[in-house]
Every structure is written in C-alpha cells, then in structure tokens.
C-alpha cells in the first residue's frame, strides 16, 4: 500500500513542477508589448475579465447551455474537492495529522458520486454529440475520464471512511490501491493533455482582460 501511496505523491510533485514550469514559461514571455495608445484601463479590464465577465449571466456559453454549464461547474468543484481530500490524506500519511468526521466523510462521498455522474454526463455528451465530434480527440476523452475516475476513487474511499477509521484494516486494500493508482495516472497525465488548462485558463482570462481593457470595452462604461 505504501508503495502505491508514495508513487502517487511523486506523481503529484511531478504534476506541480510541470504546471509551475508551464506557468513560468508564460511569465517569462510576459504581457503583450502593445505600442498602440491605450484608451482604457488594463488592470480594470483584467479584474473585470476575472470577475463579472465570468458570471453565468454574462456568457452565452453558460446561460444558453445551462445543463452542460452546470454539469461542468459541478464537475470542476468535484475535482477541486477530490484534490483537497488527496492533500489531506497526504498530511495524514506524512504527519499523522487528520480530522476525521464520519458525517463529513459521508457528505464528501455523496458529492463525489454526484460529481462523477456529472462527469459521466459530459463524456456521454461528447460521444453522442455530432457537434462535438469534429473538435474532439482521444485526449478529450482520456482527460475527462481520468478526472472522473479520480473522483470515483475518492468517492469510494470516502464512502468507506464514513464507516471505518482511515486506513484501518477494515478498509478494503483494493480500494486504497485503486485510489492511489488512479491518482498517479491523473497527476502524470495532467501537464500534457488538455487538463493543463488549469494553468492556461488564468492566462487566457488575463489576455482577454488586457485586450478589452486596453481598448476601453471592459469594464463596460455606464450608458450615455
């Protein structure tokens, strides 16, 4: 068991290092060196891009596609929650520090099951949608499937934690092995496929805010 666990921690370290490298590359390349005369305000544009412009009522991708948008948002929350749980387990393994609460574990498990369903829904939509086929590739399926599997493994583990002590002998060993194997695969894969949008997303919002902020489109001025 330890063996699987330690490999997954190495994978996490690798993943973080690679993401930091992606990020540093972007930082090194820097902001656009735009020589045109600014007529707006870049910081205000970037702030708007990362706040109001992201609200569901400001994006057609959200308000015109509410079921998909909601499933995607829930699935992302599930991923962050699963990552948070993974880090908690790391604390438990390394320092023995953990706060165990049966009801909390059950709630985490329940949300994870729900989130897995959202992920499954997104995969099914990609498989059956004629519209998505031309823009999809194997990476799209693998990335979402791996993330959904990671959430599935977390759901499984936390369901058992709701009834047994962490890593007690009553927790089936195979569940723990599956959890760490899936985590390892996800962390090794993340920096290469589309999951690296975890880094690029923020850069894209920055550039969007830079563009519209500089030209005075964002934030929108009050009506004349």
């Amino acid at each position, binding site marked *: 068991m330890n063996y699987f666990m330690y490999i997954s921690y190495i994978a996490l370290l690798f993943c973080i290092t690679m993401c930091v490298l992606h990020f540093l*590359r*972007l*930082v090194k*390349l*820097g*902001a*656009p*060196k*735009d*020589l*045109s*005369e600014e*007529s*707006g305000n870049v910081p205000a544009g970037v702030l708007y*891009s990362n706040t109001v*412009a992201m609200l569901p009522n*400001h*994006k*057609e*991708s*959200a308000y*015109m*596609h509410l079921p*998909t*948008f909601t499933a*995607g948002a829930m699935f992302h929350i599930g991923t962050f929650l699963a990552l948070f749980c993974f880090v908690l387990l790391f604390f438990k393994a390394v320092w023995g520090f953990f706060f165990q609460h049966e009801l909390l574990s059950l709630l985490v498990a329940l949300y994870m099951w729900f989130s897995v369903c959202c992920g499954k829904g997104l995969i099914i939509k990609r498989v059956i*949608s*004629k*519209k*998505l*086929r*031309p*823009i*999809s*590739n*194997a*990476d*799209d399926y*693998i990335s979402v499937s791996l993330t959904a599997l990671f959430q599935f493994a977390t759901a499984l583990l936390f369901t058992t934690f709701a009834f047994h002590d962490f890593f007690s002998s009553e927790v089936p060993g195979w569940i723990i092995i599956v959890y760490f194997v899936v985590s390892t695969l996800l962390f090794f894969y993340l920096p*290469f*496929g*589309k999951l690296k*949008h975890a880094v*690029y*997303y923020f*850069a*894209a*919002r*920055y*550039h*969007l805010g830079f*563009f*519209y902020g500089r*030209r*005075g*489109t964002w934030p*929108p*001025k009050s*009506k*004349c």
Partner: protein
Amino acid sequence: MKEPTSQQLDNALSILRQNKDSKLLTHLNSCVHCGLCGTSCMYYLTTDDPKMMPAYKVDIVASIYRRYCTKFGKLFPAWVKAREINEYTIEEMIDALFGSCTMCGRCVKHCSIGVDIPFIVRTGRMMLAALDCVPDSLQATVNAAMETGNNMAIPTPEFVDTIQWMEEELQDELNDPEAKIPLDAPNKRLLYTLNPREPKFFPLSISAVAKIFYAAKESWTISTAMYDITNYAFFSGDNKKAGIIAQRLKDEVKKMGCDTLVLGECGHGSRAVRWEAPNWLGIKFDFKTLNLVELLGNYLREGRIKVDKSLNNQMFTIHDPCNISRNGGLVNELRFVINQCVENVVEMNPHGADSFCCGGGGGQLAMGEYNERRLKTGKLKADQIKATGAQVVITPCHNCVDQLMQLNATYKLGIKIKTVAEIVADALVIGN
C-alpha cells in the same frame, strides 16, 4: 493546390513558434473543446455545421501547433489529433479561416475559457500568407493598395474629379463659394482618411463630412496620395504588407504636417491604424489618431457644431461595426453621437459589445468565392433589423454599409442605410 515548399513550411511554422509574448502560447493551449461557443457565432447559427464552430477554427491551427511544436504531439499525433501541414490541411484552413470567419470576436467574450478565437484565426491566416495561399480575390485587393495607394485602384485624376464635384455640391448646398474640400493642403490640424468605396460609390458621404468640418470651422485636408484608410493585409495575414501600407499613412501625416489622423468610417481600417499599425511598425505614433465617431463626439460636447434631432425624425437603429464597438471600445461614444442627432432609436437585440457582425467583415466582401455563404450568414443581421421595425440603419463603416445594402436587397428589408457622418450632417444647424 500545390504542396508547400520546405521554405514556405518553415516560414509558416515560425509564426507558431514566435514568442514575443505569452498571448499566442496561451490561446493555442486553452481551448477545452467544450463546443459551447457555437451558438455565439453567426456561421454556426445559420448553417448548423459543426465545422463552422469557433472551436473548430481554433483547433485547425492548434492541431498544427501540437504536431510541430509540442513533444506530446510529435510522439503521439493521433492521440491529440495533431495535423501535418499538407494539401488537405491547407484546403481546410482556407475554408475555415478565410471563408468561415469575419474575425468579429463575438465568440471570444462568450467562450467558457476566454480563448481569443479571431487572434488564432489571424495567426492561421498569417500561416496561409506565408504558404502563399491567400484567396486570389483578397490578395488582389491588397495588391491594388500596394501598387496604387488605394484598394480600388482609383486613378488620382478620377479621385480629384470626384472631390471637386462634391465640393461644388457642397458650395451649392451651403450657398457659400468658400466651402472647400481641401486637397493636399499642408499644416492643417487634421488629415482625414476615407474608404475608397466613398469616392467610387458613395461620394455623398464625403460631402457630409465636409459639411460637418465646415460647420465646426475645422482645419483639415485630404491627401490625394494616401487617403485610403483600409488595410486588407490585416485580413490577408500579411504583416509585412500591412506594415508598408500603415507606414505610408504615417509618413503622409508627417509630410502634410498634421497633428491628428482622423480615421474615417471604416471599421477594419480604423482598427488596423489605431490598434495594430504601431505594433506592425514597432513604434509609438507621435501624432494622435481619432476615429470620426470620437471627433464628432468631441464637436458635440464642445459645442463646435449644433444639431437639431427633429431633422432626423424617422425610426433609426444602430449597427455596431465589430472593429469599432466591441474591438474598438466605442460602443457608448457611437450612441452618444447618434442620440444627439436623431429622435427615435430602437436598439437591435443583442447590440453594442454583443452585437452580431453584419457578415461582411474579415475581408468577406472582397472574397467573391464566399458570396453565397456571406449572404446566408447575414440573415441573422437581417432578421435583427427587421425585428426593430426601423426605417434607417446607421453604421460608421462603409464595409458594413455595403453588406447591409446587399442584405437589404436579398431579404427585402425596405430600409435605408446611412453612415454616422450622414446622420450628423442631416441634423446640422448652420448659421444663425
């Protein structure tokens, strides 16, 4: 279609490898293929063809990037659908990037991530320019500007004749023989530019501007050598030629000794000069650039012109040119000017920064091979106009005017199309 030479291939790929800042790398790696941008693009909305989705246009360029610029794509091309540049890919690129996108940017603000789709489309167009695969019709427009100084290849005597004719009309209308359209007059405050469609097809819009300048007692001139504001190399993706055209205009401002370059009623031309040219040329302009809408707004605020909105008493609606409103930040200024000059305005839905392109942008009007598709995508705009019940559509872009006139004829809208200068000129109160 010929196979590209290795030199052409290198040139095209060097565009993807350029690293002057983090923008290109960001947008090539950001799309998550969610497909939620489709319903923000008029091409997809009017055809229902998945290949018209913004994400598809982005992916064509990004897939080449993955193939040649990422280790994963080089090792496992099938895994990430990484594409080679070959005849088939080039043909698809031409259709998707030239024939199916006006670079209007509407999809950008609605993308779930924030991918700058037209930026990637233009990057793809730059690659096609490097591969010598710009559609002939668009290239001919660029060549005309390079060879003659204006994209319609209007000979200078013909241009001068038209201006003189308009000057006579103006003098008659104002009953003042001193009313002028000054050509090549040095050391004036403003150098005014226009779209060559104006002297060719819409000369009255030149006399409308001249009438406003007369009322404002403006010091201005037009250069016979370089009056063309358009820059179709912006659309063809040829930065070198775009830079040459922009440099000529910049040199002309200096030569004429003017303080301010006024960007006439042309969306893409205004954008090319105002926002792109300094970057093509690698310099900050040491003169001011003002879009005509901004200049008119200043006149109205400063009281340099007086208007009476009751002179424009029909029902009006506004068409926002993408490069002036969404991509130029003038959504409110446009409305400020129009609201001062007309009594009744009914907005389209959506409008402003969310406005749909008329369908004629991105060089579409210059590319005859896509005419049928252009008019089909324009149906969205035609339906929007119809829904307002307006009798007149106002737009500060001659390219949009052209497309709107064709939509008017195709979809039998029964509307008039006017530029902002025409509306302001109609509302002017001169004298007393």
